[in-house]
C-alpha cells in the first residue's frame, strides 16, 4: 500500500480545529524535523523557573514561589502559588494542587502548567482559592528534550546501577548516525524475534510463530556496548521515574521505580508539601493519563472488601467467630470490642491492620459517579469548542503514580489530563458493522438486543473480541439481565486494541499516518545501513523521540487554550460548605433547641468516598460559642461528617445560655471554606 493511497483513505481526527487547513499553513514541506521537534516554544527547566520568577515579579501580591526540593541533577523543583493568601502560612480557603510532567518526557504537560498559571493569574480563578502549580515534577528528565542527541527517557539523574555490574551508568546511548536522534538499530539475526510489518515495512513487529511467522531481526536502541559486556545501552545514566515513586501500589525492585516510595527527593518534597497544606481540596496532574476523560480504572484483583471479611482460624477461636463464614466490618468490631481492655477502642483501622486486610485498589462506586458525570461534561465541552474527541486512548495510571496516590491516599478528587495523542488512524473501509464501543455503551438493553446476531457478530470480530464472546451468548446475557450494554462497553474498553491485519498496532498506524501526512516524514527515521563496531552491518531508524506524545510546537497554543480552562471549571466544583440557615425554639425553662443547616453548595462531595474511608481530609467541625453556654444535648464541637454534592444536613442541640442571648456558630474546615453565623435567642 502506498502512503498516497493511505492518505486518501484517512479520516483525520486531529484534536486541533480545522486540521487539514491548519496543517498546510503550519507545516510547509520544507520544515525540518529539528525545527518541528525542538522548537523554542517548549521551555527548558531553567526557562520554566525563569518564567515562574517573571510571573512572580509581575504579580507580587497574588503569587509566591516555593522551591520544594532540588532534584538529583541539581534542578530546583519550583512551584508557583497563586491566590489571595500568599502572605499567610495557614490558609482559610481551599487550594488546588497541580503538578506536571512527573514522567519527565511530556514537554506539553509543562507548557500546560505554565499556561494554567497564566490563565489563573489573568482571571478571577484565584479570587477565593489558592493554586499551587508545579510545572516540572521531573526536571532532570525534562531537560532531555532540549539535548542533542534527542533521547526520550523518564529517569532523573539519580545514579542507578541498572545491570548490577561493577560500574554505574556506564553504558548509555550514542547517536551513531549523527542525525540528532536516538532511535533504534535492527540487525539481521536468525535468532531475532522481530520482523517488518507487511503493509508498512518501516514498522517492526514481534513474529508470531503460531501464524507461521519467523523472526529475522534483533532490535536494539541506538548505541555501542561501552563496557564490552555484550549488552547495548543496558546501564544508561540516571535512575528514577518520578511518577512511579508514589506509595499507592508502589512496586518494589524495579529498574526505574526507586527503592521505596518517596526515595527520590522530588516525590518526598511533594509528600511534605501536600501534608503541610491541608487546604488542598483537589489535585490535578498534566501528564500521560486523563482522568478528566477516562475515570481511574477498576477491575483489579484483591481489593480490600470490608463488607465480607473472613477471620483466620487462629483468631476466629479467640473471638468466637466461624472461620468459614464472612462478616462485615461492623460485625467484627462488635465481636472484638468486648475482648479489648477498657478504654481501648476497636476501630476499622485496628481490625484492618490486625487481620491484614490490605488496601482499596479499585475506585469506589460513589466516586466513579462524579468521575463519569464530569467526563461526560468534558466531552460535551470539547464538542462545543469544536474539538474532535476521536483520539488514541490516554494511558491508564501506572502503579506508584501521583494520580493513584492522590485519589487513594489524599481523599480529594484527583484529575489529570494528557493534552495530546497522535490522531487516531481510521480506515474508511473498516467498521462494516458501523458500531463503536462508545455507541454500545450508550444503548439500552432493548436497543442492544435489536442489533441482532449478524451485526453484533461483525462488530465483535472487528474489535477482536475473544471467541467465547459470541454474539448469540452476549445477546442472551443482556436479555437475561446478567449483562448491560454499559458493562459490555466497559469490558471492551479494558481489552487491548487489536492490531490490524498486517500486524501494526493502532499506535504505530497512527504514528505512520501522522508522520507521512503531517510531519512530511520527519517523525520517523527511515532505516539506513550503518557499520556498527561490534554488531557489524545494522540499520538505524525508527520513530523520532517524543513524536508520539509531543505535538509540533505550533499546535501547542490551540491545544492548551481549548483544554486547560477545563481545569478551572473543575476547580469550581470542589465542595464548599456553608451554613444555610439556623432556627431556635424556646423549650421553656431557659432551654432552647438550636438547629443549624449545613449545605454543600457545590457539585463535588465532601469528602470523596475514598476520603471517607481513609479519613484523610481534615474533618469539618461546627462549633457553638457563647459565654457561659451550656450544651445539654449534642456537643459544642460537632464534626459534620460527609456531605454529598448539593446536600444539606441538619444539626440540632439543646442549650442554655444564661449569660448572653447571642450564640456564635462557626463552621471550620481546612479545605472547604469557613462560615459563621450568630443566633439571638428570643430575638430571632
Amino acid at each position, binding site marked *: 500500500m502506498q502512503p498516497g493511497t493511505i492518505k486518501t483513505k484517512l479520516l483525520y481526527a486531529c484534536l486541533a480545529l480545522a486540521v487539514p487547513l491548519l496543517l498546510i499553513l503550519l507545516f510547509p514541506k520544507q520544515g525540518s524535523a529539528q525545527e518541528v521537534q525542538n522548537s523554542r516554544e517548549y521551555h527548558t527547566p531553567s526557562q520554566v523557573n525563569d518564567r515562574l520568577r517573571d510571573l512572580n515579579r509581575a504579580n507580587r501580591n497574588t503569587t509566591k514561589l516555593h522551591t520544594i526540593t532540588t532534584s538529583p541533577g541539581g534542578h530546583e523543583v519550583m512551584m508557583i502559588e497563586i491566590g489571595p493568601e500568599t502572605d499567610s502560612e495557614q490558609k482559610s480557603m481551599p487550594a488546588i494542587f497541580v503538578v506536571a510532567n512527573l514522567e519527565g518526557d511530556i514537554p506539553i504537560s509543562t507548557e500546560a502548567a505554565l499556561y494554567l498559571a497564566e490563565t489563573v493569574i489573568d482571571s478571577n480563578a484565584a479570587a477565593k482559592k489558592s493554586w499551587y502549580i508545579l510545572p516540572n515534577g521531573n526536571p532532570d528528565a525534562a531537560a532531555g528534550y532540549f539535548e542533542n542527541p534527542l533521547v526520550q527517557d523518564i529517569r532523573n539523574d539519580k545514579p542507578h*546501577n541498572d545491570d*548490577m*555490574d*561493577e560500574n554505574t551508568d556506564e553504558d548509555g546511548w550514542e547517536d551513531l548516525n549523527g542525525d540528532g536522534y536516538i532511535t533504534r538499530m535492527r540487525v539481521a539475526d536468525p535468532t531475532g524475534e522481530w520482523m517488518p510489518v507487511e503493509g508498512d515495512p518501516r514498522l517492526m513487529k514481534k513474529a508470531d510463530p503460531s501464524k507461521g511467522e519467523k523472526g529475522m531481526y534483533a532490535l536494539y536502541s541506538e548505541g555501542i556496548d561501552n*563496557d*564490552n*559486556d*555484550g549488552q547495548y545501552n543496558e546501564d544508561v545514566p540516571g535512575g528514577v521515574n518520578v511518577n512511579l515513586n508514589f*506509595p499507592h501500589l*508502589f512496586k*518494589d*525492585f524495579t529498574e526505574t521505580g526507586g*527503592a*521505596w*516510595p*518517596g*526515595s527520590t527527593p522530588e516525590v*518526598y518534597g511533594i*509528600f511534605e508539601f501536600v*501534608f503541610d497544606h491541608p487546604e488542598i481540596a483537589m489535585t490535578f496532574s498534566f501528564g500521560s493519563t486523563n482522568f478528566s476523560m477516562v475515570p481511574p480504572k477498576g477491575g483489579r484483583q*484483591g481489593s*480490600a472488601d470490608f463488607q465480607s471479611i473472613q477471620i483466620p482460624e487462629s483468631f476466629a477461636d*479467640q*473471638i468466637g467467630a466461624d472461620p468459614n463464614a464472612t462478616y462485615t466490618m461492623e460485625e467484627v468490631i462488635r465481636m472484638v470490642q468486648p*475482648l*479489648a*481492655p*477498657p*478504654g*481501648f*477502642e476497636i*476501630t*476499622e*483501622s*485496628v481490625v*484492618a*491492620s*490486625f*487481620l*491484614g*486486610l*490490605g*488496601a*482499596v485498589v479499585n475506585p469506589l462506586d460513589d466516586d466513579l459517579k462524579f468521575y463519569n458525570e464530569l467526563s461526560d461534561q468534558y466531552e460535551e465541552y470539547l464538542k462545543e469548542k469544536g474539538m474532535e474527541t476521536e483520539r488514541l486512548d490516554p494511558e491508564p495510571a501506572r502503579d506508584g503514580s501521583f494520580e493513584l496516590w492522590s485519589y*487513594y*491516599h489524599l481523599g480529594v478528587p484527583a484529575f489529570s489530563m494528557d493534552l495530546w495523542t497522535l490522531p487516531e488512524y481510521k480506515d474508511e473501509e473498516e467498521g462494516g458493522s458501523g458500531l463503536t464501543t462508545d455507541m454500545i455503551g450508550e444503548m439500552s438493553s432493548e436497543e442492544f438486543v435489536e442489533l441482532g446476531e449478524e451485526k453484533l457478530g461483525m462488530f465483535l470480530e472487528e474489535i477482536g473480541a475473544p471467541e467465547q464472546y459470541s454474539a448469540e451468548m452476549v445477546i442472551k446475557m443482556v436479555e437475561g439481565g446478567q449483562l448491560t450494554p454499559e458493562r459490555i462497553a466497559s469490558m471492551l474498553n479494558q481489552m487491548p486494541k487489536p492490531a490490524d491485519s498486517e500486524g501494526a498496532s493502532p499506535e504505530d498506524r497512527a504514528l505512520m499516518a501522522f508522520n507521512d501526512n503531517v510531519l512530511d516524514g520527519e517523525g520517523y527515521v527511515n532505516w539506513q545501513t550503518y557499520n556498527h563496531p561490534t554488531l557489524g552491518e545494522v540499520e538505524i531508524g525508527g520513530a523520532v523521540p517524543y513524536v508520539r506524545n509531543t505535538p509540533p510546537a505550533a499546535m501547542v497554543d490551540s491545544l492548551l487554550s481549548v483544554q486547560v480552562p477545563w481545569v478551572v471549571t473543575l476547580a469550581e466544583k470542589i465542595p464548599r460548605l456553608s451554613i444555610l440557615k439556623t432556627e431556635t425554639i424556646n423549650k421553656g425553662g431557659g432551654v432552647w433547641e438550636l438547629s443549624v443547616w449545613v449545605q454543600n453548595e457545590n457539585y463535588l462531595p465532601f469528602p470523596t468516598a475514598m476520603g471517607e*474511608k*481513609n*479519613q*484523610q481530609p*481534615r*474533618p*469539618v*467541625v461546627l462549633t457553638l460559642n457563647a459565654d457561659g453556654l451550656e450544651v445539654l444535648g449534642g*456537643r*459544642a*464541637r460537632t*464534626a459534620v461528617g460527609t456531605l454529598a454534592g448539593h446536600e444539606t444536613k441538619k444539626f440540632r442541640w439543646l442549650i442554655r445560655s444564661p449569660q448572653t442571648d447571642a450564640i456564635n456558630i462557626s463552621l*471550620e474546615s481546612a479545605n472547604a471554606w469557613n462560615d459563621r453565623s450568630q443566633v439571638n435567642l428570643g430575638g430571632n
Partner: protein
Amino acid sequence: MRIFKSTFLLFVLLIFSLSGLAQSQDVEIPLRFDHYYDYSQVVEAVEALHEAFPEMTSTEIIGRSEENRDIWSLTINNPETGEPLSKPGVYVDGNIHGNEIQATEVGLYLMNYLLTNYGKNEQVAKLVDRNAFYFVPSINVDGRYHFFNDPNTPSTNRGLRIPKDDDRDGLFDEDFPDDLNGDGSITQMRKHDPFGKWKTDPEDPRIMVRVEPGETGEWTLLGQEGIDNDGDGRINEDSEGYVDPNRNWGSNWAPSYVQSGAGDYPYSGNVTKAVTEFMMERPNIIVVFAFHNTGGMFLRGPGTKSEGPLNPRDISVYDLLGENAEKIVPGYRYLISWKDLYSTYGDFTEFTYNQVGAFSFVGELFMSEQETYVAHDEDPIGDEEGGFNQSTEQERERLKFNDRVTQGALYREWESYDHPVYGEIEIGGWAKMSSRLPHPFMLQDLVHRNASAVMYAASQTPDISMEVFETERVSGNLHRVRVRLVNSNAIPTMTYHAVQNKLFPQDRLTLTGSNAKVVAGGELTDRYNNRVNYKEHKPEVQFFYVPGNDAVEYEFLVEGSGTVNVEYVSRKAGSRSATATLE
C-alpha cells in the same frame, strides 16, 4: 470544673519537677544494669563508653526527633582489623516504641560487654575483630523522655510526637489521660455499681472478674485514669500522636486505614528517616536486631501474608539463628510475624530485610509469665487465655509476686478519688514501670541473654577466605588459574532475597595482571571433571555470592606471564586479595 483543672495543672507541674529530681545517678563504666537509664543517661552512657574506649568506638548524632532531641549512635570497630565497611555489619537498636524502654538496655549492655570484655574473652575479641557493630540504643527518644518523665501506663508514649487528631474533632492531642492521684502512673478507674459487669475476686480483692449470668455486679470499669479535658463527653480519646514509628518505613508501607499508626507517608517521622539514612550509608549491615518489649519472641518477616513466603534458603539461615536464640533465652519463641502474631505493614525489619539485605529479627523482650510465685512441685500457671487479657489465675500470681518479690513496687493499691464526672471512684492497678518491664532485679539476666542471642548471630556472619589453589600451564603461555572462596560461617555473603531482586551488585572476583589477558573464565562446577560455566563477556570479572558453610570455585584461562592479582570484593563480607605467578 474550672477549679479542678487549675489544681490539676498544678500537680502535673509538681510531678514533672519531682521526676526531674528522682533521676540523678552518675553514669560510670562498666555500665550497671540494676536500673533503667532515662534519655539523658542513655546519652551519657554512650558518651562515657566512647570516652573509655576512644579507639574502638565512634559516636554520631544521626538525627533529631520531632521535639528536637538528639538520636545517638555508637559504632564499635577495631581499626587494627580494618575499616567498619570492610567487615560484616551487625546492627542493634531498641526503643522504637517509646514505652519499650528495656530494649535500650540490651543495646547498652551489649556495647558495654563487648568493650569491657575485649582482650579478656576470646570469643568476644573474635566478634569485635571480625564485625562492625552499629548501635542506635534509643530510636524514639521523645517517647523515652516522656515515658520516664510523664505519668504513663506501661503502654503509653509508644508513638512519635507528631500530633494527630485521633477523634476527628479538628483538635490535635487535646485529651491525654491524667494522673489524677499524682502517683506518677496512669492506672485504672473503677466505680461501685450494682449493675456493673464486674465483681470482686474472692481470692484477691484487687482483682475484678466478670459477673456470670444471674449474679449481681459490683464494679463498672471506667478505663484509664483521666478526665474529659476537652469537654466532648469522652475521656482520654486523643492523646499523643498516634504515628507508630514501627509502621512508618518504606517497605510494604500502607496508609492508616490499612495500617493503624502508619503516618501520612513513609518516613514522615524524623527518626525513621534518620535511621534509614544511617543504614543506607552502611551497606555492610547483614544482621539486624530490633528490640521491643513484651511477649518473649524472636520475630522474622514477612509482615503480611500477601508478600508470600521468604526464599527457602533465607529461611534456613533464619531458622538456625532463631532456633539458637530460643535456646539462649529460655521461654522465648522464634516466630513468623504475620502468621504467628499479626500482620504489619511498613515495619522496620521489613525495610532492613527488603532494602538493606540483612537477616533481621525483632526481639520482643520479657514475658509477664516470668513473674512467678509458685512452689517447685506446682505446675506453672502461664498465660493460657491469650487475646488481650490474662487469666485471673495469672493475675493473682503476679500480684503475689508484686507483694512478696518486689515489695509492692509494681502495683498501685486502689484508692478512692472524687472524680469530676463520675463522682466517687477508685483508682489503682499496675504501675507504669510494670507489666511490660521486668523489675530491675531481673534486668541483668534479660539483657545478658538477649545480647548473647545477638552475639551468636554475629558469630555466624560470613567469614571469607580466598586461595588460588591451582596455577597450571595449559600450553604455550596459556595458563589455568583456579580460585576458591570459602565461607566458614553459616550466613551467606548476601541474602538470597537480595540476589533475586537485584538489590545491589553481587560479590565480584576480578583477575588482572600487567602482562596477562583473561581469555575465558567462569564458575568451576566440577573440579575433577573440569566443568566450567564460562561467562560469555568480560571473563576477567565474575559475579556470585558465597553460601553459608560452603565454598565456590572459579577458573580463569589466562594468556601471558608474570604475576596476576585476584581480588574479591563483597558489599557485606569485605575484600580479599591474592596473587599467583604464571610460570
